[in-house]
C-alpha cells in the first residue's frame, strides 16, 4: 500500500487540527471540529473546502468537442465557451464509469473534472477513445489545487478578494479571474446545494488563496469544512455520489439521470460510446422501470445507512439504501435508496432494516433540501 497523497494544503489542515481520513488514496480533512456545525455554516453562512483530490483532465485541439461527444454521454461540443455541464462517462454496456463536470475553458479546450476514485479510469478511457480524433488528452491532476467556497455568504466573501464580474458569473459558468492576486479558474459550481464557487489554482498558490479567503470570510462566519459535511450537504441536496448511487452496474437511466444522455447529438453522426445499450436502457426505464431512486425520511432517531435493506410491511426486501445520514437541516435521519417501482411513490411508508429492527420511513421526492433563490 503506497502512502496517501497529500494536497498542497496539507500542512494547513494539520495546523487547523483537522481529523484526516483516507479518501481514494488521498489524505483529506474529514472535519475540523463538529461536522454538524460545518454543515450548518454552509447552509446559513459559508464554508471553505479543499477539494484538491478531484481529478482534472484537459482535452484540447480542433476536435476536442467531437472527442468528448464521442467519449461522454452529453452533447459537450454544444456547450458555450466558459460554461460548465454535469455529465457522465459510460462503458460500452451503458454502465456508469464516472459522473463528471466538464468546463469549456476555450473554443478548443475543455477541463474534465472526475471523482478522485475514478480519475485514472476516466483518463484511460478518454485517452483510448481519443484515437482518430485531432485532440490531446492531458493528465492535469497535479496541475491544479481546488478550493471551494460554498454558502449564502460565498458571493460577498469572494467579491472582497476579486474584481471578477461575479454578478455576471452564472450557475455552471466559469471565468479566468484574479483572486487575491492569483490567476485562477473561477467557477460557479458546487456539490452542496448552495450558491458557491470552485477555484482551480496552481497548487503553489493554494495556501495563499486559502488564507486570503479565510481572512475575507472572518466577519461573515466562514469556517473550514471537511468531507464529512460535504457528504451530508450533497445528500440533503439529493446529489448522487459515485460508488453509492452510481456504479458500473447501473446506467444513467437506472439512476433517474437519463436526462444527461443526449441521443440528439449531431456530431460523429450521433454515435457515442454506449449509445446502443443506453437506448435499450432508456426504453426499459420508460416501460418497465426496475428500481427507482427515492428519498427516505425517518421519524425515528436511528440512521438508515448505505447497504441496509428497505423492506415492505411484511418485511420482504424491496430495495437497498445507497446513502444515509442524520440530516442537520431537517433534524431527522434521511437516506437515498433504490426501491422497487411499486413502492417508489412519494408519501408512501416503507421500512428500513436497521440492524434487525424495522424502522418505518416515509418515501419522499428528492431533493430533501432546496435553497430559496
Amino acid at each position, binding site marked *: 500500500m503506497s502512502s496517501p497523497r497529500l494536497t498542497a494544503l496539507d500542512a494547513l489542515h494539520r495546523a487547523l487540527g483537522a*481529523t484526516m481520513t483516507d479518501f481514494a488514496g488521498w489524505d483529506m480533512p*474529514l*472535519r475540523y471540529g*463538529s*461536522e*454538524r456545525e460545518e454543515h450548518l455554516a454552509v447552509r446559513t453562512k459559508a464554508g471553505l473546502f479543499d477539494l484538491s483530490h478531484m481529478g482534472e483532465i484537459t482535452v484540447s485541439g480542433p476536435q476536442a468537442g467531437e472527442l468528448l461527444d464521442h467519449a461522454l454521454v452529453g452533447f459537450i461540443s454544444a456547450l458555450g465557451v466558459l460554461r460548465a455541464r454535469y455529465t457522465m462517462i459510460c462503458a460500452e454496456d451503458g454502465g456508469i464509469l464516472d459522473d463528471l463536470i466538464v468546463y469549456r475553458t476555450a473554443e478548443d479546450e475543455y477541463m474534465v473534472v472526475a471523482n478522485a476514485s475514478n480519475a485514472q479510469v476516466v483518463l484511460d478511457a478518454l485517452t483510448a477513445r481519443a484515437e482518430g480524433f485531432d485532440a490531446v488528452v492531458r493528465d492535469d491532476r497535479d496541475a491544479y489545487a481546488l478550493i471551494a467556497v460554498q454558502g449564502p455568504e460565498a458571493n460577498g466573501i469572494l467579491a472582497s478578494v476579486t474584481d471578477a464580474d461575479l454578478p455576471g458569473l452564472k450557475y455552471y459558468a466559469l471565468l479566468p479571474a484574479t483572486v487575491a492576486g492569483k490567476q485562477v479558474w473561477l467557477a460557479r459550481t458546487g456539490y452542496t446545494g448552495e450558491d458557491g464557487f470552485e477555484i482551480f489554482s496552481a497548487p503553489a498558490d493554494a495556501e495563499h488563496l486559502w488564507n486570503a479567503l479565510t481572512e475575507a470570510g472572518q466577519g461573515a462566519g466562514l469556517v473550514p469544512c471537511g468531507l*464529512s459535511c460535504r457528504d*451530508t450537504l450533497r445528500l440533503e441536496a439529493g446529489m448522487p455520489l459515485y460508488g453509492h448511487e452510481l456504479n458500473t452496474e447501473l446506467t444513467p437511466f437506472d439512476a433517474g439521470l437519463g436526462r444527461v444522455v443526449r441521443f440528439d447529438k449531431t456530431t460523429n453522426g450521433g454515435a457515442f460510446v454506449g449509445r446502443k445499450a443506453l437506448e435499450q436502457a432508456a426504453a426499459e426505464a420508460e416501460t418497465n422501470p426496475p428500481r427507482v431512486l427515492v428519498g427516505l425520511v425517518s421519524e425515528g*432517531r*436511528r*440512521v438508515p*445507512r448505505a447497504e441496509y435493506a428497505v423492506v415492505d410491511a411484511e418485511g420482504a426486501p424491496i430495495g437497498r439504501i445507497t446513502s444515509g*445520514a*442524520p440530516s442537520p437541516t431537517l433534524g431527522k*435521519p434521511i437516506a437515498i435508496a433504490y426501491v422497487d417501482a411499486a413502492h417508489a411513490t412519494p408519501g408512501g411508508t416503507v421500512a428500513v432494516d436497521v*440492524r434487525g429492527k424495522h424502522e418505518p420511513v416515509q418515501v419522499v421526492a428528492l431533493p430533501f433540501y432546496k435553497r430559496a433563490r
Partner: protein
Amino acid sequence: MSNPQHLQFSKEHEWLTAAEGGVSTIGITAHAADALGDIVYVQLPEVGDTVTAGETCGELESTKSVSDLYSPATGEVVEVNQAVIDEPALVNSAPFEGGWLFKVRLDGEPADLLSADEYTALTGG
C-alpha cells in the same frame, strides 16, 4: 480534553468512577467521542439489565458510523442518563460529566482497567 485522574479507563475507551456505595458511573472518553464525531443517537442498557465487562451493552451512532458500547464493568444497571438519550451531543460536549451514560451496581472488582496516565499513553497523549 485531558483524562480526569480520578477515573479508571478501559481499552475500549470507556471510563468509570470509583464505586460509591457499590455503584460506579460509566461513560465514554473524550478521545472516543472525538473519534466518533457528532453523536446523534445513544442506545443504552435498561435499568435492571445485567452488563458484563468487555461485552457490548448498547450502541452509539454518529454522523458517519455506528459503534458498539462496551461495559467496562460487570453488574446491574441502576440508572441511565436520560439527558444523553434526549440530547446525544452531550457526549461530545461533556464526555466526563453531563455526558455520562449509565450507573452500575458492581458485581466484584472491575479488572484490566487503566489509570488516566496509562490511558493517555494508550491513546497517544
